[in-house]
């Protein structure tokens, strides 16, 4: 071993000195020590090597076995090569912090993955963010049982280190922070859930990662691309995303089939081309294939011939694209690699792909750098063919076959294929170009859908709604499961009895209702032509006329129809608190009973008015079970069935309001009415058993109300909670009424409704 160090001492001597400096007796270290130091002396300065050994020594002495030392010895030189030696003190600080906490076991995965992480975060500053994030995660995920000291190791930390490179491939450092934050906040005390989240196994973990991704997401731009395809290519194919980037081993290419055009779900900017433009160029290429390419029988060709035909055909459609849309040329040129002519040693590896990529470049780019005679000859042939018109898939295939015959080399048969710079970003996999005669075990034979066993469901499958997390200002995707069902039925006669009790009130309401009933005729004044003379104005005009001024000629009036066009949903909070009793008159009555009376009266009133009206109740038992119970549908009239359901109303569980509002809004939105009103009758603030932060559900409900407003729904709350002022405004803005005197609810509710809809 003739290598020498800077000091000039013989290598073996130097290694021995270093070995002493390391002061470690792990036998595993001996095996790799020399190789590591060779690497280190190549990457590090003399001081750097010394600091390296010092740090390794510390790791060996900390009493966690040989693994941390080995990981550090092996990884640090390459890490230092990326971020520089100066990062060592910061990393050492992190290591020390890990060691002092109960998380020393996580040191090894931390070190093992650090090189891969550093490759994604080459800037020192970004790496520092990563280290800070590590510290924070450690602090927040290590649990303690009694107070101050962190006693239990974090389960999240090792998983986080292991996933680090994958995460950073898809997320920026800010996105990573968001992702970590989400996991910590939502699973603060469930080690198992934490593990699932941080190892990227749980569904929401992936969903949040998807949301935080960098780059241009297909879902965000689907409409834009669909418009592009329709406008520029007169093509209506469906765009279907496939996951790109999650599994690096599985490389998928864009393609199209009977279902539609399959595109990667996310594109980063590349070669100065924005993600959206990469999508557009890809779509242009695929649409051009759909327009100009015709499939061929594949069985007649060797794989190499097929590759050549595909390349020529790709170039043909690109040429045709540029005839219509010459502005795309700069994107093509930017995205098409320029393989170096001498990059590939044709003796050692198969250079066929490489030659085709160069050819493809030359066909696209008039200023290509290649001097190969065969290539230039075929570029000329190609241009001659294209000069004559659109050419065809078959004609171009013939040209490709000639190229293969002329350009064949012995080395093309070699097993190692030269791949560098031969993949053309915007092109699809050309599966549409080939028809196979022999149906064998092709892929599609396996994908026949299996008949599913019909299972008996005792209720409808749940609907999932997001929930707003005000701390991160983002939605938790599909957070709440909502089950809807028909409310069980009771004895409708009870409701009739309640109504009879309020006969007097009902008569008074009736008078108000008659006033409110659609007048259908509205007077329009100041018309030149109209059905009647508007006397006031006619007299005024005459006076003007007599006094010599110009009279107003618009002295008539006419009428127009003005019908009520209103749809209403009443959403009842059926939580446990409704069962409380309040003093009414001499005796006691539960709020539930009063609500029944009020709702019955309201339902009766609205029925009189003829507005479409639905009633539903809700309660919740954690986010996994929000129940939404239909009491009256829009199509139902106020009859025995509805009364029966109202009579069976019961109070139970808690109030998760946001999801219920979202669900009620869904059906209300579908109504075709000019005005849509969502009335919410509640007796307390939103709360649920699995939520400790009381602001959370208030903010979520507020968000749901905002969503409604954006979609043209008017949301109004009637609260029976005397202390509602503290929060109800935060949810409903100014659109609420607090009814302090609950015993007057049956009277107030219909009156309020009428006032709202007058």
């Amino acid at each position, binding site marked *: 071993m003739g290598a020498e160090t800077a000091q000039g001492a013989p290598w073996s001597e130097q290694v021995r000195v270093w070995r002493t400096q390391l002061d470690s007796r792990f036998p595993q270290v001996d095996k790799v020590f020399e190789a590591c130091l060779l690497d280190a002396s190549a990457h590090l300065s003399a001081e750097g090597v010394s600091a390296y050994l010092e740090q390794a020594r510390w790791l060996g002495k900390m009493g966690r076995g040989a693994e941390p030392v080995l990981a550090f010895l092996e990884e640090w030189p390459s890490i230092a090569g990326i971020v520089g030696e100066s990062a060592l003190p910061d990393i050492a600080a992190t290591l020390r912090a890990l060691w002092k906490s109960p998380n020393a076991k996580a040191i090894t995965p931390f070190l093992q993955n650090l090189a891969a992480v550093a490759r994604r975060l080459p800037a020192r500053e970004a790496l520092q963010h990563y280290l800070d994030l590590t510290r924070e995660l450690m602090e927040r995920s290590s649990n303690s049982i009694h107070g101050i000291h962190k006693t239990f190791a974090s389960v999240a930390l090792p998983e986080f280190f292991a996933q680090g490179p994958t995460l950073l491939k898809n997320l920026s450092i800010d996105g990573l922070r968001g992702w970590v934050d989400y996991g910590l906040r939502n699973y603060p005390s469930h080690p198992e859930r934490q593990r699932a989240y941080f190892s990227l196994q749980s569904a929401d973990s992936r969903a949040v990662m998807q949301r935080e991704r960098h780059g241009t997401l297909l879902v965000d731009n689907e409409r834009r691309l669909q418009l592009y395809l329709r406008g520029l290519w007169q093509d209506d194919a469906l765009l279907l995303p496939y996951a790109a980037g999650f599994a690096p081993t599985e490389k998928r290419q864009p393609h199209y089939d009977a279902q539609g055009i399959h595109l990667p779900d996310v594109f980063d900017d590349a070669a100065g081309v924005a993600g959206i433009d990469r999508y557009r160029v890809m779509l242009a290429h695929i649409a051009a294939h759909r327009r100009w390419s015709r499939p061929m029988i594949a069985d007649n060709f060797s794989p190499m011939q097929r590759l050549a035909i595909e390349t020529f055909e790709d170039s043909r459609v690109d040429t045709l694209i540029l005839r219509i849309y010459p*502005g795309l040329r700069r994107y093509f040129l930017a995205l098409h690699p320029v393989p170096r002519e001498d990059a590939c040693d044709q003796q050692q590896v198969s250079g066929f792909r490489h030659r085709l990529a160069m050819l493809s470049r030359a066909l696209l780019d008039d200023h290509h750098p290649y001097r190969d005679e065969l290539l230039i000859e075929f570029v000329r042939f190609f241009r001659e063919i294209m000069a004559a018109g659109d050419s065809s898939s078959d004609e171009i295939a013939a040209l490709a076959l000639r190229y293969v015959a002329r350009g064949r080399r012995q080395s093309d048969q070699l097993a190692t294929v030269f791949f560098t710079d031969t993949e053309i970003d915007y092109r699809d996999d050309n599966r549409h170009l080939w028809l196979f005669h022999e149906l064998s075990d092709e892929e599609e034979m396996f994908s026949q859908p299996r008949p599913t066993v019909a299972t008996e469901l005792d209720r409808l499958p749940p609907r999932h709604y997001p929930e707003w997390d005000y701390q991160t200002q983002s939605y938790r995707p599909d957070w709440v499961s909502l089950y809807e069902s028909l409310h069980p039925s009771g004895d409708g006669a009870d409701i009739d009895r309640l109504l009879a009790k309020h006969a007097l009130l009902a008569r008074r309401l009736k008078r108000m209702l008659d006033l409110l009933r659609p007048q259908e005729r509205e007077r329009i004044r100041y018309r030149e032509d109209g059905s009647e003379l508007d006397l006031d104005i006619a007299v005024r005009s005459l006076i003007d006329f007599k006094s010599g001024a110009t009279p107003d000629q618009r002295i008539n009036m006419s009428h127009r129809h003005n019908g009520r066009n209103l749809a209403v949903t009443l959403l009842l909070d059926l939580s446990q608190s409704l069962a409380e009793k309040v003093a009414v008159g001499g005796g006691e009555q539960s709020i539930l009973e009063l609500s029944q009376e009020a709702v019955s009266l309201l339902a009766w009133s609205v029925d009189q008015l003829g507005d479409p009206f639905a009633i539903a109740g809700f309660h919740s038992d954690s986010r996994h079970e929000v129940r939404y119970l239909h009491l009256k549908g829009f199509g139902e009239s106020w009859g025995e069935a509805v009364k029966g359901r109202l009579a069976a109303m019961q109070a139970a569980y808690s109030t998760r309001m946001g999801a219920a509002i979202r669900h009620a809004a869904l059906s209300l939105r579908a109504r075709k009415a000019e005005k849509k009103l969502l009335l919410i009758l509640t007796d307390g603030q939103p709360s649920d058993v699995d939520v400790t932060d009381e602001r959370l559900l208030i903010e979520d409900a507020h968000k749901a109300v905002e969503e409604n407003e954006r979609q043209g729904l008017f949301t109004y709350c009637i609260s029976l909670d005397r202390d509602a002022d503290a929060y109800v405004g935060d949810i409903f803005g100014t659109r609420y009424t607090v009814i302090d005197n609950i015993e007057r609810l049956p009277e107030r509710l219909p009156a309020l409704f009428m006032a709202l809809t007058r």
Partner: protein
Amino acid sequence: MEKESIVLCDREQFRVLEEPFYQQQSNEVTLYEAAYAARLPVMVKGPTGCGKSRFVEFMAWRLGRPLITVACNEDMTASDLVGRYLLEANGTRWLDGPLTTAARIGAICYLDEVVEARQDTVVVIHSLTDHRRTLPIDKKGELLRVHPDFQLVISYNPGYQSLMKDLKQSTKQRFIAFDFDYPDMALERAVLQGESGVDETLAEQLVSLGVAVRRLKGHGLDEGVSTRLLVYAATLIKGGVAPRDACRMALVRPITDDRDIRDTLDHAIDAIFA
């Protein structure tokens, strides 16, 4: 007194003096001439800016008839068409509306965008458009027998009006109809060249852009880009504006506020004008 105040206005002012540029799409000119020979009321249908008004103007010039155009709107009343009494210090004076004037002097009366007018306004044309060919002016107590050269033409755009705005069958069935659409590519190119004097390549590019935009109709666009706007774009380019800017200004910004569509069309402009 009253009789003198009827101003038989100068029919010459309604003449179309210079030949308007009109590119025939098929045989519509001959057909119109036949319709005019029989004095049949004519309806021209088609999307906005496809050349309806230009066609009517061209025909008036070709036939040598005065042309009186009325742009209809929803506040227009029957008296805006027929005429009204004006109040003066010492009495009243009758003033003919444009429809009455046309009927008196034997002009072609063109009611543009007639669906915009209210239903009760539209019915005053009924007696003019059947065998009677009279116009009762009830306020004045006159039954006007129309001039033999008078013809009524209405235009309407079946694309954009709502359910509430449609012509009644009893109105529709009084007219023979010409259905206009944006001309095909070659013809539209000729129109652009004829109107603005741009060269063939540019006309071609503008037209292919127009075709791309029109494909988005119903997918966020209520109406495709009109030939009129293409002409504007061509005129701007002819006047020295860079093609991209001219197209953005004349073809994209006026027709949409939708960001996705705007981006797509901007990209289309970049793709077409290399």
